């Protein structure tokens, strides 16, 4: 492993840094959005099921 980039440190680490931020950011956004939507859908489905159950009881 050679982690000393010498005089090019700014450019090399800049590239890897920007790429890491962008790709990790995209991943986090995608996964969080996915979780949110799954939770929202589940909540709605549960309310509907509860309503239905109530109707059957009544």
């Amino acid at each position, binding site marked *: 492993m050679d982690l000393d980039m010498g005089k*090019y440190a700014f450019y090399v680490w800049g590239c890897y840094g920007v790429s890491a931020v962008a790709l990790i950011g995209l991943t986090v956004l995608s996964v969080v959005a996915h979780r949110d939507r799954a939770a929202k859908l589940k909540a709605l489905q549960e309310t509907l099921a509860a309503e239905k159950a109530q109707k059957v009881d009544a």
Partner: protein
Amino acid sequence: MALAAYPRNAYEKPMIISWLANPERFSKVFAPVRPYLAAATAILFVWGLYLCFASPEDYQQGDTVRIMYIHVPAAWMGLFTYLVMGVSSFFGLIFRHALADAAAKAAAPIGAVFTALALVTGSLWGKPMWGTWWEWDGRMTSVLVLFLFYIGYMALHASIEDEMRAAKSTAILALIGLVNLPIIKFSVDWWNTLHQGASVFRADGPTVAPAMLWPLLIMALAYHLLFIWLWLVRIDSEILSRKYNGLRARISFREGGA
């Protein structure tokens, strides 16, 4: 006299053209695959990044050669994603698959990020190598236009409220873009030869030494897997939100009254 025809119950079975085109089934099949895909992506990234810094310096470019390992895959993925979007849009438009629309929409932001990374890392590579942040050569200009396509595509999708219409309009845009990209690339290359004196890049780009091939290949593979994984997550997001909207529409329909 009333006609004897009344609309029947509107319960509809989704049309099955191909097995996986059913969004429900698509979700079910790929949900268990996604964690493995995520793990494989992570492993490949660790391995690839190790190779990036374990490989020797280039005798000409020195340490900046390590930029290539993330720049070139990003550029490839920018193009590849557009191809994926174009093909998805084609299926969405011709066969009216809702899943294909979702697939095209889900791919766009990923492609935009890859393309932006290609531009930024290219610029950061160009400065130490050629002494300039930006060179108006054919390749960079074309990638910039590609990036603008992604922006336009996403802006168009966001600006049309009706989901079906948005899908259709953006699919048409993606297809026109697919046909036009080679023409734009050609025109930019033609323009570049016209003004060749200004260009500092070699037309064929740097040749890759074998020792540098491995890190490049592994990183490219990691980028591909990352794309596929993110794509699947985002498609599933789309399916979930459509299902949610469908349920909402059904409730408002039921409670709407006359």
